[in-house]
């Protein structure tokens, strides 16, 4: 039955995330952006909230909350509201842990999930984005070649979040012709021969406070059981579902976007009510007021699209359509909202004294990057 009401458990977790976002993320966003660093202290502090390990089963040491994409959507919106780049940094280990939980074999889960259930922050990441400009997950160029008793990975991944400190990467590669059905994911430890990380962090338009690096695979050889979801002794096909992973990533990114857009809209409303021109607050000019009305309406609407897609993921029905529509809509509207936020502030939207220009850059980065968060 159609309902827009989160459960009380979800509201509790959301409020926790919200509080953290409003204090820690907001406070550290600008200095981290200016210095292009992800503060480890922040990651450690976030760890105490259990945002990553809360959804992991108790059997592996996790919090034992249900794995819930709608809960993720609620949390990601709040983190995006605080700082979309630091928020993504906080959740980066999920990019590794959630696919392992969703698709991993029992052996893989037993080996890897406990890493994220300790007292200290543990970094791991997902490598999806590639160099070429016409990149599309369905037609990616990184390939995995199956040999008798090993896999050989060739290619290059870019903008891999937290590549500077991740202990493991989940690397998505193509094992056949184009198509999301021919994707496989591989678990690769940081010190694997043939893997070159960085060395430099990538410099980009936005997301400066989320360290990202290049990964190069020059014929990296992996054991058979490095393939996510494939039990080498079981004989069954891999449980990995490339389309589901992409859906989860699209929804996660869109949820972050809802958050940053909410921040932009709220800030613009406050500014417009304060800023006086021609004798009255600019919020009283129809043009500005209507822009704000549109921004507010779109934030609401974007959220419903994200929720719908997340709820389908949760109910394990095919969420491809819903995730694609949410992604299409949110990408277009989010950029427009961030851009209008700058416009409403005028010159003050252009200088770095206000957060608006940072939100603008981060939004443009967020909505063209794949794999910033998983729902």
């Amino acid at each position, binding site marked *: *039955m*159609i*309902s*827009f*009401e*989160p*459960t009380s458990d*979800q509201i509790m977790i959301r409020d926790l995330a919200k509080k953290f976002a409003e204090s820690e993320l907001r406070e550290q966003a600008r200095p981290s952006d200016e210095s292009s660093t992800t503060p480890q202290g922040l990651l450690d502090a976030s760890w105490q909230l259990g945002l990553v390990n809360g959804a992991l089963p108790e059997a592996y040491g996790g919090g034992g909350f249900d794995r819930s994409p*709608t809960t993720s959507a609620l949390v990601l919106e709040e983190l995006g509201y605080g700082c979309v780049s630091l928020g993504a940094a906080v959740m980066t280990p999920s990019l590794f842990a959630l696919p392992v939980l969703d698709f991993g074999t029992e052996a893989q889960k037993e080996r890897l999930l406990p890493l994220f259930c300790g007292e200290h922050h543990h970094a791991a990441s997902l490598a999806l984005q590639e160099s070429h400009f*016409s*990149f*599309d*997950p*369905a*037609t990616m160029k990184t390939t995995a070649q199956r040999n008798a008793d090993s896999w050989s990975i060739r290619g290059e991944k870019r903008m891999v979040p937290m590549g500077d400190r991740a202990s493991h990467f989940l690397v998505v590669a193509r094992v056949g012709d*184009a*198509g*999301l059905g021919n994707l496989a994911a591989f678990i690769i430890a940081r010190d694997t021969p043939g893997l070159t990380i960085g060395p430099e962090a990538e410099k980009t338009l936005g997301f400066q406070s989320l360290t990202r690096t290049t990964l190069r695979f020059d014929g990296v050889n992996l054991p058979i059981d490095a393939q996510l979801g494939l039990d080498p002794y079981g004989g069954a096909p891999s449980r990995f579902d490339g*389309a589901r992973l*992409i859906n989860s990533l699209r929804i996660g990114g869109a949820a972050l976007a809802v958050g940053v857009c909410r921040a932009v809209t709220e800030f613009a*409303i406050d500014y*417009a*009510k304060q800023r006086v021109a021609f004798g009255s607050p600019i*919020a*009283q000019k*129809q043009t500005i*007021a*209507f822009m*704000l*009305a*549109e921004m*507010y*309406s779109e934030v*609401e*609407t*974007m959220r*419903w*699209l994200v*929720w*719908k897609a*997340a*709820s*389908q993921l949760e*109910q394990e*029905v095919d969420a*491809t*359509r*819903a*995730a*694609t*529509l*949410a992604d*299409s*809509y949110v990408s*277009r509207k989010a950029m427009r909202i961030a851009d209008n936020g700058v416009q409403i502030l005028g010159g003050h939207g252009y200088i770095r004294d206000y957060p608006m220009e940072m939100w603008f850059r981060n939004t443009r980065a967020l909505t063209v990057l794949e794999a910033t968060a998983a729902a």
Partner: protein
Amino acid sequence: MIDFSIEDETRSQIAKVREISEAGLKYSRYYDEHEEELAPNRLPEADDFRGRGVAGRGRRLTATDEALFIFERSSVDGIPLSQGRRDMGNHTLDAMGTPEQKERFSHLSFTFAMTEPGCGSDTSALRTTAELHGDEWVLNGEKIFASGGIRSDGAVVWATIDRDAGRAAIKPFLVLRDTPGFSVASKEKKLGIRAQDTAALIFSNCRVPRDQLLGGNEEVSRTGSGGYRGAMATFNKTRPRVSAVGIGHALGCLRFCKEELEKEGIEVEHGPGMHSRSAAQQMLIEIEADIEAASLSVLRATTLADSGQPNSLEAAICKSKAGEIARTVPQRCLEILGGSGLSREHLVEKWLRDARITDIYEGTGEIMRLIIARQILGYSSEELR
């Protein structure tokens, strides 16, 4: 729990709505091209569905179910096999009528007569007057754009009982069709929705019993907004409905595009990204996303209404979104379909015309944004005009 799944029972009702709507499809083009004719209240095909009707007969429909049915009906086209006994004025009767008035009049249909030649959204400029002479109200004035103004059993007429008192003095009156002094000035010729009888009405010394002032409140409060609140209550119910109509037409256009292009070998796949799509596929995905967004905004407004929560902000948001997509989707679909899409052999061009009203009636998109802006900014209508 956040949930967007539709229950099996509702699904089967939607399927029935579709079947009924398809049975009426043969009349769509006819009444579009013969606007001078008034479709009968009951089309012959209605008999085929007697006793097999969906919802609304036995149990009370939720606003959400109703929206889902309207999406479906309007995506087929939307000529109803039998005209209901309810028109927009009935929502005002529901919202504002006294128990006695509801008892006496609910079985009749009432058009909603507010707009005047010189007054659209600005109700303070309304000129129709109602003067109390003994036990009767005497109405004088002219109304335009009254939907169902010819077919309905009567009208809810908005008139001022004190022209110096502004909006607070504007009150709704129930006026029955045969009341002397109530006449139809003309039936409008329109761009679209031609099967609907939109009329200009004239009230000339039209005498209405005193107890037909809706709600019965004859006072002019100095602080309140008078009958305006009743109009708002009406709109909070009808805006999601008319939004659903416009969205349904947009959906019809999208379906047509996809089906026809599939026949020509062009299919839309959702999974692959932008670089794997043709221009037409990209447009179709964006259109589909826009329709989905507007639909969800309607369901947001109706679920609030169904649970008894205020929804005037959400009703304005969904009307604003629906108005936008009802305007632009059929236009964009024609860009994809090219010249042949213009032909009256197909319904796309009709949906373009029909759906264009969505952003105009019951408050234009601009008025919606004004309502939204006032609410989110905390401004009065004086502070933001």
